[in-house]
């Protein structure tokens, strides 16, 4: 068994980051950052500009070295064994990085050669990428003459031409039009379905919410939260927030405060026809509460648990501080 395979079997986490510290002069860009990405997971790495996302990703891509801590990809330390880590990692920075006077096929062929692929495997890797990316019609087009969206697509092809187990994508959909963004998102979903571990940063949080299994929120170089969106919300707000909408305003607020499990009622909305309240209980208790409200004669149009989106969560966690 190869050393790579042995190293990868040892741990369930594909990407492990332990106490990374990276300082530039007096600025601590990354401050004891630690988190893990399990095999086959997609982790969204979010944070304001200057939070330390790109620095962390560059360290993972072995383009930078932390002053303290370490990161391992497939069990290989990016500090001690950068060559091995590179072999199983694909990195796509926040720019396409294309060559002049080079066709799409030649561009991919060059990176396949540079990753050590030879002969038949090289040719089939390039053909496979062209097919997967759906860029067969563009194979003989000069890569620098393509639109930004297509260049990003080719750049993603470059990052996966050696079939890496882990992918690090820094703002891959930045500056793309909506159509290109949707297509790009579909590609990432396919890669995730293919079992690749993906660490992805983006400013478009709604997109991340659709793609990612977990998220890590970073600000001022420090990780503020990691986990699924629900887990993080649970951590921030241990009680459910329920919302009820009535056909006409009534005395529901007083009624709710008398019910077991209702902790507090927020301000009434929509001229008193809608109320939000905090509730301490599970699904059974929630159903029982609804029954009691309707039994009391309140004309309920809507009754649901308020789920916070990734954007809400992001705004709540981060203070918007930029280093």
């Amino acid at each position, binding site marked *: 068994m190869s*050393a790579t395979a*042995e*190293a990868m079997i*040892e741990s369930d986490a594909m990407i492990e980051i*332990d106490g990374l510290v990276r300082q530039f002069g007096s600025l601590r860009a990354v401050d004891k950052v630690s988190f893990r990405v399990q095999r086959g997971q997609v982790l969204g790495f979010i944070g304001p500009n200057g939070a330390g996302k790109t620095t962390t990703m560059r360290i993972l*891509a*072995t*383009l*930078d*070295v*932390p*002053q*303290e*801590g*370490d990161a*391992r990809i497939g*069990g*290989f*330390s990016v*500090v*001690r*064994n*950068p*060559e*091995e*880590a*590179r*072999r199983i*990692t694909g*990195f796509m*920075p926040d*720019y396409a*990085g*294309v*060559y*002049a*006077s*080079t066709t799409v096929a*030649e561009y991919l*062929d*060059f*990176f396949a*050669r*540079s*990753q*050590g692929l*030879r*002969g038949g495997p*090289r*040719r089939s890797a390039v053909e496979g990428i062209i097919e997967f990316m759906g860029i067969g019609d563009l194979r003989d087009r000069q890569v620098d003459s393509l639109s930004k969206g297509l260049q990003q697509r080719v750049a993603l092809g*470059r990052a996966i031409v050696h079939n890496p187990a882990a992918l690090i994508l820094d703002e891959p959909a930045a500056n793309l039009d909506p159509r290109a963004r949707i297509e790009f998102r579909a590609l990432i979903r396919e890669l995730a379905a293919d079992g690749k571990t993906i660490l992805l940063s983006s400013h478009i949080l709604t997109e991340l919410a659709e793609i990612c299994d977990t998220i890590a929120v970073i600000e001022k170089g420090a990780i503020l939260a990691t986990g699924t969106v629900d887990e993080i919300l649970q951590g921030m707000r241990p009680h459910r927030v329920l919302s009820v909408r009535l056909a006409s305003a009534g005395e529901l607020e007083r009624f709710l405060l008398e019910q077991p499990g209702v902790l507090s009622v927020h301000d009434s909305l929509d001229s008193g026809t809608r109320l939000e309240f905090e509730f301490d209980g599970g699904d059974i208790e929630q159903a029982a509460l609804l029954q009691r409200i309707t039994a009391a004669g309140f004309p309920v149009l809507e009754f649901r648990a308020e789920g916070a989106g990734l954007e809400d969560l992001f705004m709540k966690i981060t203070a918007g501080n930029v280093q």
Partner: protein
Amino acid sequence: MASSLEGILGRLDDASDRLSPIVVKEVRQIVRQRGFLYSFALSLLAGLTIALLGGTSTARGSLSAGADIFTYLMYCLTIVGLVVAPIGTFMALRNERLERTFDLIMLTTLPPRRIVIGKILAQGVKLLTLFAGIAPFMAMSFLLGGVDLATILLSLTVLFLWSLWACAMCLFLSSAAKTRAVSGAMMAVMGIGYLILFGMGSGGAFIYMIRGLLYPGMYYGYYGGGSMWISMFAGGGSASQIWWTLAVMTTFCLVTMTNLILLAENCLALEDEDRTPALRVGLLAQFLMVIAWILISPLILPAGGGAFSASEGFYTMCGFCGFQLMVEAFFMSTGNLEMSRRTRLRDRPTRLFRGLTVIFRPGGGRAIGYVLAQMGILIAAGAALAPAGRDFRWLLAFCGYICFFSGVPTYLVRLLAPKRATPGWLRLAILVSLLIAMVTPELVQYFGSAAGRFEPYALRHILNPLAALGEWEILERTSHEWPVLAMGAAGLLAYVRLIVMARRKNVQPVSAPAAHAG
């Protein structure tokens, strides 16, 4: 038919796996670039014009037409080899940096050295294509007579080698320019340099210099006299001198080209990936090569027939090796004393090699030890070659000045302002102290006290290394050599203190990542 063609293309594609990926990529790019197509078309046009003029000349009865065609074709190739190809190399790396594609290559399995060599080899392919375009006209010069095949082949080989050297130099310059502004400034300086060289005497001086430098064989065969390099190394024009000159120039070209490649590799490698050992070995080889030339020269060349006299040999050696030492001391004494974390974690030589390779390894003041080791070699060779005790003391003073001006300012800045002790500030400190040392004696001369104001050579002049070394005879006559040697001792002490400082920094434990697979 189509399948056999595909089969051939497939086999060629497989064969291309043996080449560096960089060569394959660069050659693909080069053949599509307008610059290359223009260069190729222009060189063909120039070759055709020269051949036509030569043919006309032969028809009029000229016997030297073949030699003339050859000479002018070589001028054309010189421009291609020493101007067009090197600028292309500079631009290739510059574009890679500006388009930020270099990081992408660094993420692959290609190490920086293979990247640099690949870029130079790609220019080699470009040069060979351009040379091949001129080949039919070269054959014409041979057929018209007046030049033999050996001269043609030798001249083309020498030109090709020096063209690659120029490409390596431009690649190094391009790799040293980390920002767009610096790279632009370097291009401007290169452009001005070429203009000055071509502008000198309407290009005559440049052509003369290049001709003397590159085509000693041609010079010998057709112009009878010795080129400046022949004069310098062999002093005359015998066959043994020609071959000696060629051997010296070729080894110099190859060794310095290797070092330029290693320097470029160092500039391109990530900051944390210390690649100094190979470079130090290369620079030491260059240093030893110069000493070996000087020592071997009397054995190869007949006495009075181009061999160095003891004094010439001594001062030539001191000139070349001293210059290299100065440059090395300037950069190595001011480098980071602390090894990067990755280097420290990976720097685990076996016990067997630890002692043997100590001065080649990074950090811990080893760079200063490396400079001192070379200084020791130079002093030992100088002791063997020095014609008189005064010459040897001159060499000691030379080394002393190197130690003093690189060691003392560096040590003082590191001691008094450690936060400012970055390579840039330290190098500035060295240059400023040197400037002050050179200007102060002259200022004292004119604004100082009346006593001794107009003394032609006073103690204060020892501050100026150029004045002191230039007037060493006067200096010894006035018994001022001992203060100079004392300055050298102070420099040596500063070096020792820097080594101690560096060792202290590197004994602090580096935070090691947790042991894990790999």
